[in-house]
């Protein structure tokens, strides 16, 4: 099952590239020339988002290392436990929208501490997959085009994160107790 899923993901890329190339060639597209033309924009895009990413990652790093996040967590730990949110995974849930690599590390830690097939291990896995790193995505995507005012995008992203995380915990409780 897992192997099938992973190999499906593995196969998609070469299939996709092959198909595009074939159809383009059949339609008389000068593939090499067009590739270079489009690819040139990639460098500029990447360089453009550096300041946005530096701003975001340093602020998140400072909040994490100083213990600010834990401090913010303490008052909401109690109410969340009442609705069935395990306190062990709270830091991971809060980290998820901020830093994908940090929450991934916390998930691996949970898998090792509680076992990958324990309720907490399953919950941590579901939680990691349930949303994406909102802050990173907004910084990269808006940064690449130079948009500085995100308007309500952050609010919507965080609401969706909260919904995804709560749904993951709820579904895990229903399925595995």
């Amino acid at each position, binding site marked *: 099952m*897992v192997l099938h*899923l*992973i190999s*499906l*993901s593995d196969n*998609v*890329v070469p299939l996709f*590239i092959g198909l*595009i190339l074939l*159809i*383009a060639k059949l339609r008389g597209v000068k593939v090499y020339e*067009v590739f270079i*033309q*489009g*690819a040139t*924009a*990639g*460098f500029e*895009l*990447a360089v453009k*988002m*550096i300041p946005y990413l*530096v701003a975001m*990652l*340093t602020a998140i*790093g*400072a*909040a994490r*290392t*100083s*213990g600010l996040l834990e401090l913010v967590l303490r008052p909401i730990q109690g109410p969340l436990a009442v609705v069935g949110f395990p306190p062990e995974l709270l830091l991971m849930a809060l980290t998820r929208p901020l830093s994908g690599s940090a929450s991934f590390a916390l998930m691996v830690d949970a*898998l090792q501490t509680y076992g*990958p*097939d324990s309720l907490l*291990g399953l919950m941590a*896995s*579901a939680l*990691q*997959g*349930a*949303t*994406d790193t909102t802050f990173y995505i*907004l910084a990269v995507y808006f940064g*690449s*085009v*130079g948009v*500085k005012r995100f*308007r*309500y*995008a952050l*609010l*919507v*992203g965080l*609401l969706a*994160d909260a*919904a*995804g995380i709560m*749904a*993951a915990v709820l*579904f895990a409780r229903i399925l595995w107790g």
Partner: protein
Amino acid sequence: MLDFIWFAFLFGGVTLSLIKGEPAAVTMVLLQEAEAAVKLTLSLIGNMVFWLGILSIAEAAGLVTMLAQVFKPIFTFLFPTVSATDTAAGAIVLNLAANMLGLGNAATPLGLRAMQRLQELNPDPNKATPAMCTFLALNTCCITFIPTAVLAARTAAGSAKPAATVGITFLSTVVASMVAVIADRCCQQWWGRG
């Protein structure tokens, strides 16, 4: 909102480190993270250049517009301000599809291409448009069929059923996406369309 959160994170982090009497750790993290951000971007460049090249071949062959046509009804519902025949439409559809299949490497350059095109349609280049907000709302909680990284980590941790969470991950992302679309619509009303 971003302005406030950014201020709170950085100011709060620095202040707390001074109160705790361990300012060195935060100083080090600031420098480390700044360097990590640049390294991350540099490591993305090759991937970005490659996928943008492939994407322009697909665009030149008319495949991107074709794909956008297939998803026209749902696209026009989600993005009423963008024409379904626009280059942006195809790039958005491709980005979301790549995300769903767990192809993060391909998804980002495709998404950036979409943003580039949406920015060309933007009357005020400093400010996000409603279409951009909807697109990123869908991106931050994208429906996931195959959580590739989680599967790999569960297998590595010796799980007897590594794919156990695939189903609820999918359902959770569906819930998150529905909330995102509804919240996005409400915010559009409250913030105005300007």
